[in-house]
């Protein structure tokens, strides 16, 4: 009961803030709604027993990446946003149509899979829940089985850092 209330409230907030991100006129407002959205998603992770992921979501996403967005929005500080310019080729209508097609596709998949639940899923749910701290489990996986992807990710971040410096510097 409590879980249901929590889930539906959080889902309403997530989707509400999502709508606001997509529709808000002011870009800074968009960023703020995005942060609120991410915080609600972090709470969904806590509900799913992924505490470490929830913290990473707040720390890296909401506290790091979105601050970057906020910086850029403030630095650029447009008087008149691009969405105020006339939409000559009516692209946003085409966009809505494409999005509707995709919505139909995804809902078809959802309805289809709800009608036929996979058997493997039911079998796995029977195994006992792990009670070890979530951080330890994720850490063990990251540093053993997924060590190479982890290193690749760190390389990616290094390359991105150098690339961002190159792009942002006026003269090298």
């Amino acid at each position, binding site marked *: 009961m409590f879980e249901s209330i929590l889930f539906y409230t959080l889902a309403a907030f997530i989707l509400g803030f999502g709508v606001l991100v997509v529709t808000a006129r*002011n870009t*800074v*407002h968009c960023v*703020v709604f995005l*942060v609120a959205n991410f915080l609600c998603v972090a709470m969904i992770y806590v509900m799913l027993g992924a*505490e*470490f992921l929830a*913290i990473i979501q*707040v*720390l890296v996403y*909401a*506290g*790091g990446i979105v*601050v970057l967005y*906020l*910086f850029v929005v*403030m630095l650029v500080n447009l008087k008149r946003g691009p969405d105020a310019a006339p939409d000559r080729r009516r692209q946003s209508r085409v966009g809505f149509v494409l999005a509707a097609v995709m919505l139909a596709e995804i809902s078809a998949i959802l309805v289809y899979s709800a009608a036929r639940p996979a058997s493997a899923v039911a079998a796995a749910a029977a195994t006992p829940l792990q009670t070890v*701290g*979530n*951080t330890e489990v994720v850490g063990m996986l990251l540093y053993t089985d997924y060590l190479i992807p982890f290193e690749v990710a760190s390389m990616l971040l290094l390359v991105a850092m150098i690339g961002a410096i190159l792009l942002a510097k006026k003269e090298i």
Partner: protein
Amino acid sequence: MPAWLPPPAVLAHLGLILVVFNMLVLSAAFMVWMERKVCAYIQDRNGPNRVGFEGVLQPFADVIKLLFKEELRPKAADALLFAIAPVISAAAAFAAFAVIPFGTSTTLWGLLDQPIPLQVTDVNVAVLVIFAITSMGIYGIVLAGWSSNSKYSLLGGLRSSAQMISYELSYGLALAAVIMLAGSLSLREIVLNQAGTWWGFIPRWYVFLQPIGFLIFMTAGVAETNRAPFDFPEAEQELVAGYHTEYSSMSFAMFFLAEYVNMVTVSAVATSLFLGGWLGPFLPDWLAWVWFLVKVFLILFFYVWMRWTLPRYRYDQLMEFGWKYLLPVAVLNLLATAALILWIG
């Protein structure tokens, strides 16, 4: 006890939340008084001495004055963001304290069947929670700076966020070294790991194992809370009052409160991680929180002392110090700690 009441444990927990909240507000008020008093003595003055004994009630008089002031908002300000920015600041400051333990557990003189720990909640990722909530506090400052639509506010907000992001790295690396030593992310376990003494007289506090980490943490903590000598966001001589230039009345009071509560939180984290939290000799278990308060206020006194002793740096010096000196030292400290743990076992 009537049946419609929630179980005593729940009531006790709610009471605990209330106590922690009020303790934070009172600590912040006391801190304001201490700051003015210490500053006055350093400058050979008397400081506030009219309201209450030696001016102890001065902060409350200030708050009442602020409450009755007019709430001003610049015409060109963004109404929504201007209103929520101080709320974000204050909420982030208070929320971080929820995971900090300040004493052993208590049964309230036998009132409860199960003892409750003196801590709002003991999550197993407590250190990261504090870190994450601190990073949320940046939004209050940046949004205040932007939404005021004033150049001083904007410059203050940008400086502050750049400073906080830069120093958060060193702060996090200093934390990581302690986490490696303790092998846990729960603050309660980290504190309990510091129990006992070496050779009977040196307490097993991590400050003795991590002296460099402690220094890095304290330096980064000063920068994180925007205190002198790193108080660029509100450098009076350059930026009027930085990000809260345009704020008045209660919204200003909220920024003010947030700043002081943040200092209390940083000191409490430093106490738990490096100075053994509530552990100390002579006092019985149920009075252990006195040690916690003593340690926290010693660190706070150190902050005040530093503010009125050291001049402000230049902004580029701050950034250079953070990235070119503090961060490499923090990384080396972390590597050395890891190597030593592997070597000694």
